[in-house]
């Protein structure tokens, strides 16, 4: 046997050790991926199942209850600062932001009239996101865009697995108190198509190609990207406070 140009006699026990180490590594990775991977998978499934029974709707209703909502905007029109959120319904980090942090932002900033939120849906993950965006903007026509976005996040499946189907949209619509038929009809409307195009154009003009991305606009100021260190409330709100100064 020759290694690095030097003839080497490899003791048999070395080859056995090598084989054992590699086999152990393969087993370790398989166990880790299966155990940890299936752990997150079942957690996601549990969340989806639990919320499909109506829990998500309750949460969404309590988050947005009593807050004015018009088209894609959540909050008082007079709010001096606008936080625009670029999201993709298939994006797991958008789900994390929406489920974990949005309620805090709404409670601490939107409800008090300091900030209004504007939703901008963009396709980043794949074509299936378009179905979700159509449903979300269809709900906007009945001023329930934010509830629909949250209801879809509650049902989020694997990326590009085709989980955003019409039955899923109908279920989400029903859960947030909209007529499923009305939503699915509106999904094909010119207004919805136009809203999606407008959102994509705005994202393109800001050079946004990932989600979630946040942009903030102060009175008379330009729309500028908000840099955040993380999506948890503890990481997100300091950046918001800084931007509000």
């Amino acid at each position: 046997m020759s290694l690095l140009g030097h003839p080497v006699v490899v003791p048999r026990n070395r080859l056995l050790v090598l084989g054992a180490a590699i086999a152990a590594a393969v087993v370790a990775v398989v166990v880790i991926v299966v155990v940890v991977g299936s752990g997150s998978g079942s957690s996601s499934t549990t969340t989806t199942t639990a919320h499909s029974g109506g829990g998500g709707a309750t949460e969404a209703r309590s988050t947005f209850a009593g807050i004015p909502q018009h088209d894609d905007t959540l909050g008082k029109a007079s709010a001096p600062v606008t936080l625009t959120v670029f999201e993709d319904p298939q994006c797991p980090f958008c789900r994390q932001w929406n489920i974990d942090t949005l309620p805090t932002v709404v409670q601490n900033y939107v409800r008090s009239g300091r900030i209004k939120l504007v939703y901008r849906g963009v396709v980043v993950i794949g074509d299936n996101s378009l179905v979700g965006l159509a449903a979300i903007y269809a709900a906007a026509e009945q001023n329930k865009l934010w509830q629909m976005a949250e209801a879809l996040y509650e049902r989020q499946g694997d990326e590009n697995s085709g989980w955003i189907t019409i039955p899923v949209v109908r279920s989400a619509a029903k859960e947030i108190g909209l007529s499923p038929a009305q939503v699915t009809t509106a999904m094909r409307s010119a207004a919805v198509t136009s809203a999606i195009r407008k959102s994509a154009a705005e994202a393109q003009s800001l050079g946004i190609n990932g989600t979630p991305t946040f942009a903030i606009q102060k009175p008379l100021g330009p729309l500028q990207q908000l840099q955040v260190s993380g999506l948890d409330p503890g990481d997100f709100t300091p950046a918001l406070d800084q931007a509000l100064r």
Partner: protein
Amino acid sequence: MRLRTPIAAACMVGIAIAAYLTYVHYAHTSPVCTTGGCEKVQKSKYAELGGVPVALLGLIAYVTLLALAFVRGMNAATAGVFTAAVGVVFSGYLLWAQLGPINAICQWCLGNDVTIAVVAALYVVRLLTEEGG
């Protein structure tokens, strides 16, 4: 132990890649990318394992491999082969995820794949040629 320098050099490359991707993950910024799919990969569910960024796991692995490069003996060589082999197998899993479910390629991940393969090969050579044991 004549392989100490090449192993350390390869580990430093791996540490640089993993550290950059770990920073991108926690800073929530977009990685510099020429393949167009880095952000998609970085934001996919495969970018984390049990809530821990895989980039951070890679960083820990490379630091371990770097440390083992400076420890003499068969035990260190065997631990190095095991750690590097875990890295290679896991990188293969992530490459499968990029080509399949994610449907996007990340240049940093490919760079890591090559680096961990080199580190693993060097550790195999070290194990087979280590003095003593």
